[in-house]
């Protein structure tokens, strides 16, 4: 709002008069006629000559506004006042307009024609257009009121404009063009042709042309005003008058991008609404918009809910669009705004105060989708089922859709998460029983729902319910005989239960469906080798050799493809022969493997891993180990260590209990020695990825990182590893922002997307609010007995998985042999979160050689001769 203008006086200074004039001109430009007139009444006393034209303009604008609003009597009063201050020639158009509004259009037409076609004195361009607009807006059948050629021509043009508008409404585009050709460029009606062409271009999706035409319209004419909503729909918001007072004070909208939509005036929104048949909604919409922008998302919803009777709605109209907007908004809102909106919906649902069934339906759907990952499973299930029941009631049953919905619910219930606690433990499903139940329901509703079958299969896998899974896979192979994914799952299941012939048959069918999927030959080779191992073990060495020979068509010359390389199949044969077959054959196979393998140590390490995989028993032993150690001493390079690590990873993928701890220790030692030789950055990066979190590699990797950073101190990959602490990262506090920021900048500069993503994620984590401070009086100092208890808990963590025992033994071993300085270093680097008192007790136990007491042994099951099932891969 402009501030009040001080009463002008002859002594008013020139700068203040200039300032007042500027403000009045702004008001005139904004068509705030009454306000401008009131200010000018005061100003004109100071300088009549300067402000009189502006006063006339303000009064004429006010009179026209009154006429447009149907206030003819008030307009007549203004006109009377104008007659006293303005020359008569300037008032002619206004007088005609008043006459037209006062009389019937038929009565005033002759005056218009005369004024436009044969004016006694030339009219100003703006006045001509005002009169022309009134003529068009009369929409009366035009009989030629005069006989002069100019009047006849004008009448023809007027008829053409009306005909073009009618043809436009009927989508007769060629008629529109024909009619518009009849209107001369110099005609007073020419701006109507521009408008009509613009509308036609808008509906022909020619947005550029439509925008150009609309913007070319002379201002303050009816076509220019009518073009505003079209321009808004074309995305040109600068053309539409915005509600400046609101924008200036509005905070950033809850979800709008920066530089978002200016708040449009009610008139423009109303006109846009008229274009889609939504009349009279502008006020409600703008109220809702204001609330939304001020962060009152719930108030915004309430404003729409109360102002639009049909809201919320399923229909694909503007009410449906608003419904969709509000119920999808929580997915994009900030946390605070989302909480506000969802709390309001929660209140509506709890109080059963929903406006119509659609509101409850959409609310349940929204709660389910937004909270899917965090809601308690029983609430998630209840909400989702309420949604489905509501939908069924509203739109009828739809088994396919409900099957899909239950499949999704099953997926949510089958999400796995690690139980909270310091020690990592195996992930568990959120609600395994519920997941099985809803996935079975999904399959019952739509037996053709492949995704639900595959998900249920995955749940059975996770639950290790192999018989259920195998039964399901049999059903799946019957229902989906041409689905490659099903055939591959079925083949894997057959290999698990040693049904090699059936598994190979599934693989053959899968190959017919997809010849390029590399997983199919990999599984085929694996199946033949597993079959060979079984045959060797059962004393059928010749059959075993035949089975190994079967893999020949699937082998490749890529030495790094450990699943299908020629030399690895020779290694397997050598292992089988040496273990169960003929030593001479074994020697021949080993010679073949040696010839094809990239190096001697690679061949021996692979043979060692293959031996362990075929034995599937605990300790790190094999007939190849001693020879491998010798070969490794002679063949130390970073590239070689990397290849051996890849073989280790391959072994772990085949058998999750392989745990190559002793092997890793060997490789870590070898890595330390190999760092004297040159290596590439790519090798160093892969080493960090493969061995970065293994404790045994801590020292050699620190040296490696140091060497790389010596050559390139800013390298973001290695800087990040350095500041996060490598293998101890999980025990460390994350680095601070000022440490991470330069690494992020460098990663962005080098276009290192992986590091950029990692550092950004760490920075995001830093933004999370810190844990609340401890309550007053809390003293974290331990006395002796508490320290002993804490140490006891550290050494006997409840639920410590047995597989982590070696890691703790290794830690205790390190403490046992470490010097006092090293003990301090271990505390600082590996166990910084353990209080010193507790750490001292742990060191005492370690020095006392007590070691890590084993968890109580599980009751032994009777040993079955057959190896365990449900193991992927080779053995």
């Amino acid at each position: 709002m402009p501030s009040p203008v001080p009463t002008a006086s002859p002594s008013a200074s020139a700068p203040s008069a200039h300032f007042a004039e500027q403000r009045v001109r702004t008001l005139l430009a904004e068509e705030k006629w009454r306000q401008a007139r009131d200010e000018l009444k005061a100003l004109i006393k100071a300088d009549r000559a300067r402000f009189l034209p502006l006063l006339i303009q303000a009064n004429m604008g006010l009179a026209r506004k009154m006429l447009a609003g149907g206030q003819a009597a008030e307009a007549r009063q203004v006109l009377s006042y104008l007659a006293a201050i303005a020359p008569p020639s300037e008032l002619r158009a206004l007088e005609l307009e008043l006459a037209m509004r006062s009389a019937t259009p038929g009565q005033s037409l002759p005056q218009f024609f005369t004024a436009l076609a044969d004016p006694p004195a030339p009219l100003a361009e703006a006045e001509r257009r005002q009169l022309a607009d009134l003529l068009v807006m009369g929409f009366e059948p035009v009989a030629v009121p005069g006989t002069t050629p100019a009047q006849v021509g004008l009448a023809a043009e007027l008829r053409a404009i009306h005909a073009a508008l009618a043809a436009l409404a009927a989508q007769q585009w060629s008629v529109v063009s024909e009619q518009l050709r009849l209107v001369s460029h110099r005609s007073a009606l020419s701006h109507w042709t521009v408008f009509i062409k613009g509308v036609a271009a808008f509906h022909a999706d020619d947005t550029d042309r439509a925008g150009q035409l609309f913007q070319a319209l002379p201002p303050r004419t009816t076509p220019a005003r009518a073009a505003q909503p079209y321009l808004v729909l074309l995305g040109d918001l600068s053309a539409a008058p915005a509600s400046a007072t609101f924008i200036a004070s509005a905070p950033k909208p809850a979800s709008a991008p920066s530089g978002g939509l200016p708040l449009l005036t009610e008139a423009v929104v109303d006109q846009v609404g008229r274009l889609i048949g939504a009349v009279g909604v502008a006020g409600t919409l703008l109220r809702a918009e204001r609330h939304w922008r001020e962060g009152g998302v719930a108030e915004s919803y309430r404003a729409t809910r109360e102002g639009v009777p049909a809201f919320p709605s399923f229909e694909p109209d503007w009410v449906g669009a608003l419904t969709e907007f509000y119920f999808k908004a929580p997915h994009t809102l900030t946390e605070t705004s989302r909480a506000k909106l969802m709390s309001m919906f929660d209140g509506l649902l709890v109080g059963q105060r929903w406006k119509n069934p659609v509101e409850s339906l959409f609310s349940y759907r929204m709660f389910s989708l937004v909270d899917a990952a965090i809601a308690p499973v029983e609430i998630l299930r209840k909400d989702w089922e309420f949604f489905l029941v509501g939908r069924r009631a509203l739109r009828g049953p739809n088994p396919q859709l409900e099957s899909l919905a239950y499949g999704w619910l099953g997926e949510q219930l089958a999400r796995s998460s690690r139980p909270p606690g310091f020690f990592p433990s195996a992930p568990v499903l959120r609600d395994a029983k519920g997941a099985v139940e809803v996935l079975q329901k999904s399959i019952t509703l739509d037996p053709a729902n492949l995704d639900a079958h595959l998900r249920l299969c995955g749940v059975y896998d996770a639950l290790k319910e192999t018989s259920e899974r195998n039964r399901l896979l049999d059903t799946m192979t019957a229902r989906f005989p041409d689905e490659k994914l099903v055939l591959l799952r079925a083949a894997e299941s057959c290999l698990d239960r040693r049904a090699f012939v059936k598994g190979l048959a599934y693989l053959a069918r899968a190959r017919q469906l997809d010849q390029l999927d590399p997983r199919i030959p990999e599984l085929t080779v694996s199946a033949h080798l597993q079959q060979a191992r079984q045959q060797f073990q059962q004393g059928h060495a010749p059959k075993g050799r035949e089975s190994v020979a079967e893999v020949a068509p699937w082998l490749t010359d890529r030495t790094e493809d450990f699943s299908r390389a020629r030399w690895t199949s020779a290694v397997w044969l050598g292992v089988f022969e040496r273990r169960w077959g003929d030593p001479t054959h074994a020697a021949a196979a080993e010679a073949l493997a040696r010839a094809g393998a990239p190096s001697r140590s690679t061949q021996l390490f692979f043979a060692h891993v293959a031996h362990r995989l075929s034995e599937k028993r605990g300790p790190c032993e094999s007939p190849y180990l001693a020879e491998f150690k010798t070969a490794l001493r002679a063949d130390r390079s970073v590239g070689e260590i990397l290849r051996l690590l890849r073989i280790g990873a391959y072994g772990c993928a085949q058998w999750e209990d392989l745990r190559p701890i002793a092997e890793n220790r060997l490789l870590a030692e070898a890595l330390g020695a190999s760092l004297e030789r040159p290596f590439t950055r790519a090798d160093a990066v892969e080493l960090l990825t493969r061995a970065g979190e293994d404790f045994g590699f801590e020292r050699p990797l620190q040296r490696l990182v140091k060497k790389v950073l010596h050559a390139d101190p800013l390298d973001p990959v290695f800087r990040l590893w350095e500041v996060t602490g490598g293998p101890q990262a999980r025990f460390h506090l994350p680095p601070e922002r000022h440490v991470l920021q330069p690494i992020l900048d460098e990663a962005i500069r080098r276009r290192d997307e992986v590091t950029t993503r990692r550092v950004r994620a760490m920075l995001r984590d830093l933004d999370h609010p810190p844990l609340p401070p401890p309550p007053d009086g809390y003293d974290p100092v331990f006395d002796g007995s508490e320290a002993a208890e804490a140490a006891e808990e550290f050494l006997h963590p409840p639920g410590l998985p047995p597989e982590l025992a070696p890691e703790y033994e290794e830690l205790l071993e390190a403490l046992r042999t470490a010097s006092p300085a090293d003990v301090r270093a271990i505390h600082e680097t590996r166990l910084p979160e353990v209080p010193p008192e507790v750490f001292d007790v742990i060191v005492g136990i370690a020095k006392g050689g007590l070691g890590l007491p084993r968890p109580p042994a599980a009751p032994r099951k009777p040993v079955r001769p057959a190896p365990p099932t449900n193991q992927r891969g080779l053995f």
Partner: protein
Amino acid sequence: MNPYLILGVTREADDALIRRAYLAAVRAATPEGHPVRFQEISAAYEKIKDERSRHRHELFDCEAAGDSPVDAFLRHARTQARRAPLGFDAMKEFLRASSKS
């Protein structure tokens, strides 16, 4: 954006009708002439091209319908208004209301 509205079909339309509407829409808005509109049409078609996609869209679509209520309204109007011009009487009313604004 509502894919049904973009393609100009009802929720009850079947695969064949949706495909016909899609082909007609891409003929009118070719990728060379109207790249943005073409992308909009293609994305809409992907969402509802078959029954399974339509069910997925109804159940799980979370794409924001706008940044604010008026933005959502304008996005809807942008598509809806283009489909056909106002009838002659509605056009007269629209122009009269414009002249008064």
